[in-house]
């Protein structure tokens, strides 16, 4: 059982961003993708989620046995078990966090079944306490007027509530100070489970001291060009991405 990305090609407008990307995250593992700005990391997350601006021009993604692209709507993919914590989460005016997450959970129930409100709030508060999010946030509009760090915590809160089978966390560390980084990482680590696969996208090695990955991948220009264990992250931090590019050239 895995999240398996095979030879994925995708473009936005006329511009090809993903150029034959291969990656497999077995259930129970945590993988990290590192890569320079603009290498296509966020594009990968959005393409899998079904963002309407991108066109998939080749390849496939298998979520366990399910072909992700056979599910047209982003919400179908989400209900099938895919979660993306976005690099830039959207603000949703007028929709409170409590109502938003509740609607998302309700959408997963069979027709005619109602979410138990008491149990829901109990569960929500528990997760909020864990992520040290003030309970007052339940009645605030989703991400509206939140600081960068608050937005990222709110993404992790949603993940914790929705219990995805596979989750992609796109630069969840950016905008976090060191305390927040620790809290959020604990929240993510609490989600590690043999029943779940996690893909952590980051720019900095720093996050990977807190969320220790099983495998680290390096992305260059829309492809995974190198994979290794957690020491690869340290090497990247020390030597820079130029080193990766040189290595590839040598191999070629």
């Amino acid at each position, binding site marked *: 059982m895995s999240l398996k990305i095979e030879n994925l090609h995708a473009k936005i407008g006329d511009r090809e961003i993903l150029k034959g990307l291969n990656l497999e995250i077995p259930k129970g593992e945590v993988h990290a993708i590192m890569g320079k700005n603009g290498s296509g990391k966020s594009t990968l997350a959005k393409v899998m989620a*079904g963002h309407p601006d991108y066109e998939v021009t080749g390849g496939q993604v298998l979520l366990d046995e399910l072909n992700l692209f056979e599910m047209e709507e982003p*919400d179908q993919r989400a*209900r099938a078990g895919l*979660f993306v914590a976005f690099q830039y989460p959207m603000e*949703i*005016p007028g*929709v409170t966090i409590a109502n938003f997450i509740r609607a998302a959970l309700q959408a997963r129930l069979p027709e005619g079944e109602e979410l138990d409100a008491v149990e829901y709030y109990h569960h929500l508060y528990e997760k909020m306490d864990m992520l040290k999010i003030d309970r007052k946030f339940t009645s605030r509009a989703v991400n509206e007027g939140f600081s960068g760090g608050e937005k990222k915590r709110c993404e992790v809160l949603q993940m914790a509530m*929705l219990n995805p089978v596979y989750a992609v966390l796109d630069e969840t560390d950016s905008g976090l100070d060191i305390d927040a980084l620790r809290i959020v990482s604990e929240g993510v680590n609490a989600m590690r489970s043999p029943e779940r696969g996690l893909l952590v996208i980051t720019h900095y090695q720093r996050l990977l001291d807190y969320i220790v990955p099983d495998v680290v991948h390096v992305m260059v220009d829309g492809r995974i060009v190198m994979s290794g264990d957690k020491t690869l992250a340290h090497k990247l931090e020390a030597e820079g991405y130029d080193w990766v590019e040189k290595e590839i050239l040598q191999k070629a």
Partner: protein
Amino acid sequence: METKPDLNIDRSVGDFHYDVDYEFDAGIGLSEKTIDYICDVKKDPDWIREFRKEALRKFNSMPMPTNWASHDLDNIVFENIRYYLSQGTQPKRSWDDVPEDVKRTFERLGIPEQERKFLAGVEAQFDSEAAYSNIKAAVGEQGVIFVGSTEGLHNHPEIFKKWFGKVIPTGDNKFSALNSAVFSGGSFIYIPPGVKVKHPLQAYFRINAENFGQFERTLIIADEGSEVMYMEGCTAPKFETSTLHSAVVELVALKGAKIQYITVQNWSANVFNLVTKRGLAHEEAEIKWIDCNIGSRLTMKYPGVIMKGRKARGEVISIALAGDGQHQDTGAKMVHAADETTSNIVSKSISLGSGRSTYRGLVQIGRHLKGCKNNTECDALLINTESRTDTYPAITVRGKENACQHEASVSKISAEQIFYMQQRGISEAAAMSLAVNGFVNDLVQQFPMEYSVELKRLIDLEMEGSVG
């Protein structure tokens, strides 16, 4: 829900239609003959016949207000419309007596059930006339009158004549003139001094026929210190051709009386909905319009309150939802004509797809007045980029000792935001409903429970429809 072979069902609650035999039909087009036909069927007194004919002359002489309003008005073909259709002028007092072909429509809309559950009285209008009208015995015993306009003018002429056409003169606008010429149906309500009607009175307006115009006329008089809540609902099936709904509603709140008038309309997208609503509030009286406009092709409606007595209060709370291809042109009029009068306008509009919302507000405070206050808040929500919204507030405050406050905001829900919500597992339609319900939530809180549930359901249906 039962299904019958002669029925065309659609997703939307009101979009169904049964064939009905009409006993009375004024035919197509509008002339003095049409008016004579209506007067004969209704056995109108001479002054009403004359009133109608005078109104027809005014209607014919007035131009379409396209110098400021939508040019879509020019697409109304008055010669193609049927102005009067009924199975008789006497509403039934029991649902058992309502003809089967009409009754099943109201049953399907849930009216008899709502009546049993929470209403003090119901009038159910089918095309031109009420098919059913009744109030609970206990309410009748308090001296409350709740009948149709025809019955009002026949049986209670002393009250009717005193106020009819006084709040909204025939020539107020072209459509109030049209209504005055051919009005039929609507409610006549009188609440005696000091009587507080506990449960709402409800009218339901149903258009069933194609190429038809519905012109109900409602007059509500709340005598000193009385209180009443009136609610109206409206639906029509979706026809290929356009349908016209043009009502006139006049409210009179005498000293210290309170009237709350709630509308939840759900017209199909072929209906021109051109309605004039105004209330006259005497000393310390309070008139509150709660107006929810969903559906229709073009709605033009600006409920107003004339605050005639000291310390009178006027309020308009409106929610307008303009779906694809629809135009909601709504607003409010507040005329302060006495000291220490206060008014409040809260308008929320939602535009979807190519839908368009317009807000027009008018606040007038006389120069010689003191201590008057108006608060206007007008918020628009645009869902996707094609939508448009316009705001035309006109505030005329004369005199230094009065205060006006005006706030406006525009929020947007983009495809990107919908995508974000969908990524959490929420369908596109549910995501839009969530955004819309969040936007109107503070207003919906003011509704009676049953109506907020109904409104929420209508919003959900409209969103499902817009996703296709």
